[in-house]
């Protein structure tokens, strides 16, 4: 029912692609990160909460339709519905059922409840397509509570020592999540413009966030003291960020679990915070679907597929895609290049 071709994940019966990386007629988008939601589709369909960001990033004039979670619709006999993926707000797993056969395309997901996204719900299926960004047993993420404590303690200490605290977090999803963890009694919270743009979209369509001030050319930087600044990963090393001195730099990413990655980033502090599933979460999620066929995409896919086969006796297949997982989210923030799928996949 589902195939993988040069354009993306395809359901021929419904004539629809899921998160395609080349322009196609009909696309269902699991979430609005740039490696999953690309430009150039004739029509888009996504969860209602993802629409403002899709329009903001791909253009107001895109042809896009919003659905609620669990709202079922049918295309050429295929029953389709979206289910919470817990990755970022408005992220969805796509359930497709045709003649009793059920597939779930999960996009990116996590099981932790981040306080911003509708929490992940397992969906029973025969075939499950999963990411494997952190599909290695060394990845065991700390609880939401202990992260919250770590971040606020860090901020409090920096403020006491007369330093600002700058946290680099991807503008869509992670930034809002960080913001809602902060203890506003410690000090003022500022945002980078790119973060503020997405915050506004969240507040307009979903609900209020902690109060922040956007840093503009008019902002008097001398006023910023002992504050928290949420900025995008691409601000690292720029004059913009240097003007916030004295500051301590924190990075929120699942990769921060490894000491090597923390050191490579040259950050003062790495917080192990990810919008992807860690090892236990992946295993839990997959077993909860009851699926026997697992298709493993972006991440440590060969290792993870072998694990699923060896340990759970599942029928696991590696699939090459152009999704990049936390790497693109965290490291470059750059749009993956168009049309690179013709070679090597």
């Amino acid at each position, binding site marked *: 029912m589902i195939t993988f071709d040069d354009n993306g994940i395809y359901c021929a019966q419904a004539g629809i692609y899921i998160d395609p990386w080349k322009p196609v007629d009909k696309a269902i988008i699991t979430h609005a990160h740039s490696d999953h939601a690309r430009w150039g589709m004739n029509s888009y369909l996504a969860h209602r909460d993802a629409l403002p960001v899709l329009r903001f990033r791909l253009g107001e004039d895109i042809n896009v339709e919003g659905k609620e979670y669990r709202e079922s619709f049918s295309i050429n006999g295929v029953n389709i519905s979206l289910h919470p993926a817990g990755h970022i707000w408005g992220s969805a797993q796509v359930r497709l059922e045709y003649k009793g056969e059920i597939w779930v395309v999960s996009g990116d997901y996590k099981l932790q409840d981040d306080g911003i996204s509708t929490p992940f719900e397992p969906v029973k299926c025969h075939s499950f397509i999963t990411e494997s960004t952190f599909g290695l047993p060394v990845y065991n993420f700390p609880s939401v509570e202990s992260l919250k404590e770590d971040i606020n303690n860090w901020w409090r200490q920096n403020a006491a020592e007369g330093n600002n605290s700058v946290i680099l977090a991807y503008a869509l999803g992670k930034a809002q999540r960080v913001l809602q963890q902060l203890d506003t009694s410690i000090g003022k919270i500022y945002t980078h413009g790119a973060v503020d743009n997405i915050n506004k979209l969240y507040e307009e369509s979903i609900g209020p966030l902690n109060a922040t001030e956007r840093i503009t050319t008019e902002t008097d930087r001398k006023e910023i003291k002992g504050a928290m600044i949420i900025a995008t990963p691409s601000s690292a090393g720029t004059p913009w960020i240097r003007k916030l001195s004295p500051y301590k730099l924190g990075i929120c990413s699942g*990769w921060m679990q490894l000491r090597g990655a923390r*050191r490579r980033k040259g*950050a003062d502090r790495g917080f192990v915070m990810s919008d992807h599933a860690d090892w236990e979460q992946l295993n839990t999620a997959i077993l909860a679907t009851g699926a026997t066929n697992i298709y493993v995409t972006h991440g440590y896919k060969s*290792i993870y597929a072998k694990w699923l086969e060896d*340990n759970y006796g599942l029928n696991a297949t590696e699939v090459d895609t*152009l999704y990049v997982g936390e790497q693109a989210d965290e*490291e470059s923030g750059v749009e993956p290049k168009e049309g690179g799928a013709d070679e090597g996949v």
Partner: protein
Amino acid sequence: MKAFSDVFTQIDQTTSTNEKINALVGYFQTAEPKDAIWCVAILTGRRPKRTVKSGELREWCIELSGIPGWLVEESYHIVGDLAETITLLLPENTDVKEYKLHEVIHTLIALQEKTDEERKEYIIGMWQSLTKEQLFVFNKLITGSFRVGVSEKIVIKALAKAFDIEENIVAHRLSGSWDAGTTSLLDMLTTVSIADDISKPYPFYLAYALETPVAELGNLDDWQIERKYDGIRGQIIIRNGELFVWSRGEDLMTEKFVEFAILPGIIPDGTVIDGEIIPVKDEQLMPFHVMQTRIGRKKLSKKHLEDAPLVMICYDLLEYKGQDVREKAMTERRALLEQLVADARGEMELLPLMMSPLVVATDWDEVAQERLRARDVGCEGLMLKRKDSVYKTGRRRGDWWKWKVDPLSIDGVLIYAQRGHGRRANLYTDFTFAVWNGEELVPFAKAYSGLTDKELVEVDNWIKRHTLDKFGPVRSVTPTLVFEIGFEGINPSPRHKSGVALRFPRILRWRKDKAVKEANTREDLMNILKAQG
């Protein structure tokens, strides 16, 4: 262990040298002296001999975590550090205990005498009673390599600050070999006499690479110009009729350099010479790899000694007639050194010491010309030293500069990539490059460094989309990308398919302007080899 683990975490979490120093100062001032000396020993590379094999650690980790062996290996490959891998794979402990650092280390040392069962019981017991932070430090204590971004210099600064002693004195008293199990930190730092340990070398003075146009150094007459030799920087110490030879890594290598054994008696007591140890045969300098094969040997055969006879090219005099002369001017030290070497040669014609010859030039342009000739005379470049400079401690700017020749280079094609270790765990960053041999690409070098983090991400992204095949952790990619590879030297090597082995290969830049067909050929490499003779 908690205090040590905390200071380790503090150091690990900052990139600021000052914060690292302050964290250590705090530790040295509050820690139990028996723990503090071990902290100094560990951070300066004086760790005890390893008593648990990595194979055993893996086996017990598999047993305790329930993770299959192949997956432990994959994890280790990606994390790049066994101590960290095991820490991440073991379950979190709820019932944690506190131990003293020196007791843990002494128990680890004593494991050598224990049975396999006893060792396993101890390690597993510890694994089940430490927090994750302490578990990591414990595993690091077992496996060695404590790389935490703390140089010996930082430790010296912290000790100087904590005990209010001058840095260079701390550096001197800390150098050489001592056993943390039997040494008292306070005694070591406060014992005054030089005769306490006649083997002690002085800290080396090291130069930075020249950062400005050479003409900006001012009047050429103020500078002493020497060649930069490619050997092992060392100190020859003669005190109380005994000889000690130290390498720059502060290894005592007297046994390896038997040529110098005749020096006591010829060179007066109370002499310390700084120089470069290199093989010289029939008055010709020989390439570094000739000595390398000899240094690696535990036992030296007569043939090794004949093939690579060593001499020291003498740069500097640090101790003369038992007096520390490092505060005298360079020219004064050199005059004393010249006299000393000349006198010794009067006693023994085949002296294994040579003065480092001065490069004579009338202006900076001529100096620049000499630098370009460096490879022809088997050197790496020039050393520029201010004539009035004193002999400082550690790497310093200003008075001494090294001015190396540009590396040799060749354009190679990226053909294989492997995921990096440690710092680069999630990226394909270990590359193999090839040159053309007719229509075929022959691998000639592996390189890991030289690209910016941004370029690494870009290349990694490209590799994932242009993979032809996978063999274990290695991917072969469509030959497309061309990189300029720099290297310091080239040697013939029958073990490599290309027939050559490069020294210090690294990526100089990504040649986005070059098509794959424009990369260099094997013949080009052979020509460089011939030219380097």
